[in-house]
């Protein structure tokens, strides 16, 4: 293993934290859906790919800056997520775990390959003036889009927290997550709450997609790179735990960045998978101790 000067290691950690916050945002949607619906949504990565293409189209066809594209894309993806849960996943699941597994797998296959058919396998990216800008923090140079991503990810998490704790919808979501039958008995429309939760998860993805696009690229398989990362974060942070997802995101961001620094980019991904397998095998309730 090579020794690097301290500044480079620090910079790598900082960049890892910045990327990790956006990973956390991706994982937030996944963990919320898991916590409330108790389903593992395999289509999460494909929905992220779809959102990234949507942001790319907004930029290339309408000249919309990816950050501004957040405004129209959030309601669109909320509606999309709502509809997918209400009309596809919900009816197909019939309360069977393996059905949900297969339906969300089917969804991801459809979305991913529809993108492949429409946009082909070329890698696309947006050209924005600030893509290469850096911000100097002490000895470190931080990429501007990543700093923005970091900030917005925390804002979104805060907004989500407020929605969940202070609004009626949020209370209903938490009630359904804790005790579905009880919630139904006091008059909460459980299927509606499920669909709203799924919609919020998809809206988180829309934000994450817009944050990623300026410093990243999009191709039909890009979601795959994120979905295992997101699953890793979710199991690491404890299934269904919102703060766990953010914290897990930061940890995974740093791990990826450091293993990329020491082992090269292709093996860098390996660190994440190995952590994922180890956590699943030995600590499936997550490192931060949320109950399974």
């Amino acid at each position, binding site marked *: 293993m090579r020794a690097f000067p301290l500044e480079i290691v620090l910079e790598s950690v900082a960049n890892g934290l910045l990327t990790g916050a956006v990973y956390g945002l991706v994982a937030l949607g996944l963990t919320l859906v898991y916590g409330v619906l108790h389903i593992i949504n395999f289509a999460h990565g494909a929905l992220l790919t779809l959102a990234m293409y949507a942001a790319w189209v907004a930029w290339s066809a309408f000249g919309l800056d990816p950050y501004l594209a957040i405004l129209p894309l959030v309601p669109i993806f909320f509606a999309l997520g709502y509809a997918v849960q209400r009309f596809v996943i919900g009816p*197909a699941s019939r309360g069977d775990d393996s059905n949900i597994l*297969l339906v969300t797998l089917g969804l991801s296959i459809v979305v991913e390959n529809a993108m492949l058919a429409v946009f082909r396998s070329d890698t696309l990216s947006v050209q924005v003036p600030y893509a290469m800008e850096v911000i100097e923090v002490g000895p470190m140079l931080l990429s501007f889009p990543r700093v923005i991503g970091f900030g917005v990810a925390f804002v979104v998490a805060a907004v989500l927290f407020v929605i969940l704790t202070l609004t009626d919808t949020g209370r209903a979501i938490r009630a359904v997550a804790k005790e579905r039958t009880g919630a139904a008995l006091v008059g909460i429309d459980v299927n509606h709450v499920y669909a709203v939760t799924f919609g919020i998860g998809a809206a988180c993805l829309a934000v994450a997609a817009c944050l990623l696009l300026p410093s990243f690229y999009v191709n039909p398989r890009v979601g795959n790179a994120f979905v295992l990362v997101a699953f890793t974060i979710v199991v690491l942070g404890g299934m269904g735990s919102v703060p766990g997802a953010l914290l897990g995101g930061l940890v995974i961001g740093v791990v990826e960045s450091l293993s990329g620094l020491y082992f090269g980019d292709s093996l860098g991904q390996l660190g994440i998978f190995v952590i994922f397998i180890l956590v699943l095998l030995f600590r499936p309730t997550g490192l931060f101790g949320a109950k399974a």
Partner: protein
Amino acid sequence: MTAKDLLPIAIFAILAALLPVFVTAGTWLNFAVFTLILCLAAQGWNILGGYGGQYSFGHAAFFGTGAYVAAILQTRLGINPYPGFLAGIAAAAVIGWIIGFLSFRSGLRGSYFALVTLAFAEVFRVLANAAEFTGGAAGLLIKLDVRPENFQFASRGVFFWVALGLVTVVLVITRALERSRLGAQLVAVRENEDAARALGVDVFRVKLSAITLSAGITGAAGALYAQYFLYLDSSIAYGTWISVEALLAPIIGGAGTVFGPVIGGIILHSLSEFTKSLVGRIPGVDLVIFGVLLILVVRFPPRDIPGVIRAWRKR
């Protein structure tokens, strides 16, 4: 197992074996061989997923291991392809045993098992892409040397018979499993794991046997793929495509039935060829249809196409 159990398998094998007599066009035989390789991989998935109810999303780990071991033994070490083929099967079975041991020991079920198998397959893919002895990103080319004793045949028809032979052997194995004690215990685990355990079934051992057998069969499909196409890279051998197709074929054709994976494999590949002839070479369209088919099949029970036909005829 009685003669009556084996009769449908014999009829299938004899009818299918006649195919190369009537069809001599290279593209069609190519299609048929590729379909049989997929059927074989799917038959492997069916043992664990169909009979055992343990849905793996990472059968690429076994397919790829079978393929790479068979290919590496002959290209790097000059070992004859026939023992190399068997070694590929054995290696895949060992990998299956290890993954099974780790995940079943930790009590992973349902979605968690699916996730961990997916992650294992990805680890193998990244490793095979980075390592030197696998040819890295450039892939691995098996030298063209067409001699029967070298497991390479001048006629595609011969290869078709080899593939058909393997599929038939696995049909018999699956039927035998169905009639065996292990098969009954496996189905019991699928239906209700806790009840099976309460009745004294050694759940861990049963699942472990199933994944080992399952991995070996899918590994055979991988080794056969390497031997037929003579080229491998990490995204072919350990790619998600094979995990998905190995799962889709039995689900669509009837999971937990002897002929399910074969029926599903034929449906899938015919559909994919048909769409290609319809829309031309637009990538992804056939997979969109697979995905829609998967959603529909799960949405409207009974969950597989033979079941849909049965239900329709009863009306």
